[in-house]
């Protein structure tokens, strides 16, 4: 969670300059972490395969800053940013990517199954839309017990074509559970562009909320302040008893679907333009008018943390092979 000191309430509020710098630092940390992960993966140090969310940092930071520690999230296969923003220390995430006991899922999960229940991360899910129904159930439990907590599902535009999404939206609205459905709309279902998987314009995907009579809140997913304020409003609505919210955030994936994806399906000009105009970190840097020196010093600080996370991970403990059988049953 980022260091936003004042939560300015829903609608029209602004985040303090200090708060915005906090966002910048966290987004930069997520970016540098993911770049490092790519680098270490290409160097052959990380098993499995990886998805990074470069370009989508403002969604993770803005949404999670609006949540309390006892609120819960379910993430996706593109989970590093959400997990960092919800409060898991980066060295525990890095250790997980190295398959170590010290990892946030103790080496059982990997990049696509980052869990940290203590900070409310109920797990990243490698099945598109697979985590959404569980969030309805978590929200139902909060509602039944009268707890002031929200449950938040992250998913992309691709997930909105899955049956689990529709069943979950319907049930959540029917029972008015305190859930927030964060539609992280990057316009891509893996390699398939929105125009090939959506029968409506990509920017209008939020309309799907209307079919369920669900409250729709939309914001520019590249503007962390807008995301944060929208998420605060969503949380307030969800807790009011009025029902869940579809929080539609238009964002941009400035990288391939997976690390190593040659993106043969993507127009190079479009990608270049998106990188030049949609990078949420560059946009925020310009807005904060950070000098080169300020940026360099912040970057050095963040990089030191990232490097330390790699050292921590590499020095971690390998699980014993037979540990595989330890957590099959409670």
């Amino acid at each position, binding site marked *: 969670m980022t260091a936003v000191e004042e939560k300015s309430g829903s609608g029209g509020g602004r985040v303090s300059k200090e708060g915005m710098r906090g966002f910048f630092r966290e987004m930069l940390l997520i970016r540098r972490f993911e770049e490092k992960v790519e680098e270490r993966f290409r160097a052959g140090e990380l098993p499995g395969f990886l998805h990074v969310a470069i370009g989508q940092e403002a969604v993770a930071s803005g949404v999670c800053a609006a949540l309390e520690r006892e609120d819960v999230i379910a993430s996706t296969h593109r989970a590093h940013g959400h997990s960092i923003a919800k409060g898991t220390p980066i060295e525990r995430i890095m250790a997980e990517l190295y398959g170590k006991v010290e990892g946030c899922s103790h080496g059982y999960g990997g990049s696509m199954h980052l*869990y940290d229940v203590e900070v409310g991360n109920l797990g990243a899910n490698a*099945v598109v839309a*697979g985590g959404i*129904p569980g969030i*309805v159930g*978590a929200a139902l439990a909060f509602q039944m017990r009268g707890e002031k907590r929200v449950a938040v599902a992250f998913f992309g535009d691709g997930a909105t074509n899955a049956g689990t999404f529709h069943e979950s939206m319907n*049930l959540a609205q029917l029972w008015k559970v305190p859930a927030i459905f964060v539609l992280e709309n990057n316009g891509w279902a893996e390699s398939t562009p929105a125009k090939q998987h959506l029968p409506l314009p990509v920017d209008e995907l939020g309309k799907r909320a209307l079919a369920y009579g669900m409250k729709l809140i939309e914001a520019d997913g590249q503007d962390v302040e807008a995301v944060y304020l929208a998420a605060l409003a969503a949380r307030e609505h969800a807790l009011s008893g009025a029902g869940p919210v579809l929080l539609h955030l238009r964002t941009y994936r400035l990288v391939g679907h997976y690390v190593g994806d040659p993106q043969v399906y993507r127009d190079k000009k479009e990608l270049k333009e998106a990188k030049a105009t949609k990078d949420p970190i560059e946009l925020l840097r310009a807005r904060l008018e950070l000098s080169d020196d300020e940026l360099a010093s912040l970057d050095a600080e963040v990089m030191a943390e990232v490097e330390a996370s790699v050292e921590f991970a590499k020095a971690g403990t390998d699980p014993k092979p037979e540990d595989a059988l330890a957590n099959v049953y409670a």
Partner: protein
Amino acid sequence: MPELTYREAVRDALSRALREDEDVFLMGEDIAEMGGSMAVTQGLLDEFGPKRIRNTPISEMAIVGSGIGAAIQGMRPVVEIMYEDFLTLSMEQLVNQAAKHRSMSGGQVKVPLTIRTQGGAGWSPGAQHAQQLESWFVHVPGLKVVFASTPEDVRGLLWSAIYDDNPVVFFEHRTLYPLKGEVPDELEPIPLGKARVHREGKDVTVVATGRLVHDALSAAEQAEKDGISVEVVDPRTLLPLDEETIIASVKKTNRCVTAHEAVVRGGFGAELAAVIQHAAFDWLDAPIERVGSRFAPLPFAPVMEQYVVPQVEDVLDAIKRTVARA
């Protein structure tokens, strides 16, 4: 000892758990005012109210998935999937989510969810309302699988399933709902993973589940007239399996028949046969016989249905085949 039907026994376990524990609640299609398509949950809405007896949309993924989410938050949901054929709609949530959260999280979460469902042929429902799919779930690490065959068992096992900290797929057999049986005054939990020896014998062991337990008992009585002494064992929990009881029985009788209503190929009998031959190879005097449905989707016309689904005579024939071997 009071007598309850199998249906009443399920309801009794549910009501007691609902009464004693605020964390227990029910979700499913038509379970509230209608009382469930098998009338199992009749009356529960009146006693426990709509917050705890929750009618759902026809959304099997969301029913199971929201049950998972609530269970991880410490509730003990009991969800009903009206027919086990419809479990297929919730497979992703059951197999990828419920079964795997604990392992994928490195032991951080528990999923104390019970998924009740029912199925079974004998009333011409056709191909999509009576399949027996229990063996599919035995293949999934992280799930537990129960299939109860008597009122006493269904009550004690359901209680244990609700209070187990793992996802339990709980199979009931449709044709057994009216079956009456004595149950103890007080509900006695029956531990998961414990088989029941229904009848002792010395010539052949029939390991049977669901309706076939009763068919096996009938076949055993008939076999006795021919001087064949049959032991009937019901595993009751298919996962985890009480291998010890089953293997001890086969080592005593030296012959074994497996019997279930599901199709033979890839059925639970195949797993039983593999476990038994490995543990008791030197004790076996005959190949293990497997009784189950013929390999066809369940046809509608009663004459064809009857032909596909195993009957008492099929168990009896299998018993005689094993005993005929020297």
